[in-house]
């Protein structure tokens, strides 16, 4: 059978695909289109039944959409794509290097002679915490996370890296400053402890989510607490990984008593709350038996 492919911008006819069967999958259609136009690799294509419709899944056969010979489908070019893993590695490696660079107190930001000034215990611990956090993230990107999509738009690389790298510079400049004043030891060590707990919690959730999904699939199940006590937070929120993440940065702020770090924590909280609410709604829509008491990100609150 034949199907006509139209563009979503202006509904121009682009290709006519031939030799299709009802069992042909969307993925195979994308491969055919790719063969006709080299620039449009499959990850860059979004196939829909209407110009503004939702993207059809790769694994579905065309028969499940009731498409017969002569039917029309729409192709949207998602723009240049880049792999999720690539983006994550770039955006997490940056903070590691940028923060440690500020730790050496370059003359450009601090003036001459700043590097020879004494470094407080708090500044050293903060640098360690920051590095551990981002090293952990890089580790998780390579060994723990399972991604639902393989790519995202190229522009996101620029956007995400700017966010992480510039905020790192902003926080690092202040914590590593020769005139940085640490809080009391009690405050520092208690916050450090909380930071450690939050890091372990965050890692536990990531591992639990990984084990929730069989390898190579994009199966979705309701996340539940496991034998790891840190995962108990699942009883209270849908996205405890974000809860722990905010916990880490709130602790870091208390540990350094640094307003820029607080701003970074709040910015992250805002973004993660938006994501958490989206995920929470998706869970509730997908699973009719989704636990009722759970909130999205902050227990009992949001």
């Amino acid at each position, binding site marked *: 059978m034949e199907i006509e492919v139209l563009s979503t911008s202006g509904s121009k006819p682009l290709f006519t695909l031939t030799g299709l069967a009802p069992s042909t999958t969307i993925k195979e259609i994308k491969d055919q289109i790719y063969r006709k136009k080299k620039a449009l690799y499959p990850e860059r294509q979004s196939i829909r039944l209407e110009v503004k419709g939702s993207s059809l899944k790769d694994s579905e056969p065309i028969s499940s959409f009731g498409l017969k010979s002569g039917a029309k489908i729409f192709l949207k070019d998602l723009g240049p794509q880049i792999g999720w893993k690539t983006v994550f590695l770039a955006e997490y490696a940056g903070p590691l290097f940028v923060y440690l660079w500020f730790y050496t107190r370059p003359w450009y930001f601090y003036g001459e002679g700043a590097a020879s000034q004494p470094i407080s215990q708090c500044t050293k611990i903060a640098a360690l915490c920051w590095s551990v956090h981002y090293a952990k993230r890089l580790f998780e990107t390579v060994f723990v996370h399972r991604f639902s999509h393989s790519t995202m738009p190229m522009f996101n690389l620029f956007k995400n890296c700017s966010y992480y790298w510039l905020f790192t510079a902003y926080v690092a400049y202040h914590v590593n400053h020769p*005139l*940085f*004043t640490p809080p009391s030891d009690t405050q520092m060590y208690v916050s450090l402890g909380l930071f450690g707990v939050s890091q372990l919690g965050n890692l536990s959730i990531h591992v639990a989510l990984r084990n929730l999904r069989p390898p190579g699939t994009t199966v979705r199940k309701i996340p539940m607490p496991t034998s790891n006590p840190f995962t108990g937070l699942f009883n209270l929120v849908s996205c405890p990984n974000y809860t722990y993440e905010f916990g880490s940065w709130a602790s870091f702020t208390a540990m350094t*008593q640094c*307003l820029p770090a607080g701003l970074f924590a709040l910015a992250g909280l805002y973004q993660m709350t938006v994501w958490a609410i989206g995920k929470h709604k998706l869970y509730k829509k997908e699973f009719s038996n989704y636990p009722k008491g759970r909130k999205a990100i902050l227990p009992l609150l949001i």
Partner: protein
Amino acid sequence: MMEKSEGTLSPFVYWAQTDSVATLKVDLKSVKDPHLRIKEETVEFSANGVGAQGLKRYSFALHLSAAIDPDKCSLKVTDRQVDLTLCKTKKAWWPRLTAKPQKPAWLKIDFDKWKSEEDFDEDETRDIRRDFPEIYDKLQKEELGYRRESAKKIYLAIYNLLQFIGFSYVLIVMYIRHYKSGAESMEGTYEAVGPAMKFIQLMQFLEVLHPMFGYTKGSALTPFLQVTGRAIILFVMIEAEPRMQTKPVVFYLFLVWSMIEVVRYPYYITQLYNMENSILTWLRYTIWVPLYPLGFLCEGVVIIRDIPYYEETNRFSISMPNKWNFSFYLPTVMRIYLLFLCVPMMYFMMSHMYRTRVKKLGPKSWIRKYN
């Protein structure tokens, strides 16, 4: 006020309609012994009840504008009133209830029914007024003697008018001073119109509240960014640094700002009252082309010339050490704005205006592309 018709008292009757039904609300309380006679084009009603003349027997007769189906009519008596529902034989809008143009004095319009459709079983929950706006206005005028204007609209019209007057005042004063002393007048610009400019600038924060309270469409974020940006230039860059106030760039900046506003506010007024003025519309969607870049340029000049002053005075800056390990150095922020933010922001604002221009002024073939 009662009128005797055929020797009997008439009650007040309020009528309303949809395109398939006409309703009569007879204003009689504690009605007893109602008599109703309905034919294809006439309605006769009488009953004992409490009306404007107390407990009496009231009656009325109506010769209708078009035919109704007597079998489908319904009568409902409550303690407060009597509701009559008449089904029109043919679905149509009746210009009047009665066949004759002269309306009896006891027949009034039921404005409440015109607002909501709750009493009807029909699916239509539309506001009829939208379909026949002129008729509603005409009826209101006939009934009440005047047309009620929406308070929101009046407020917005007054706001836009006052702002227009404010910015015109600035332009006029600047023009007169320039006419009298040429380039020398520029130095005293801030002294002459600065207070007025500060006042109308602050008033512009109302434009952030308008979308928040539903007075105008759109998001509150755009006006917030625009008004805040200008406020920073005016209050932080100029007001707070006296040495900036006597520079000629202030003259040019006020000129550019005022020229934009003096077109924008009257344009809004024409939109409020649906009195499209093609010249004004064209101006509003075209003068931004030269004026936005000029505005950004003047603002940029103000900022760049202020940098040495703020490095000297350190105003608005916070340095370390302090309890919150926080530092803010205004000259650095000013530099970052000029180097990295100024051009993208201008691009963003101008492309937004361009899109709105195409939507408003065409060419028609482009409109779909920008939608």
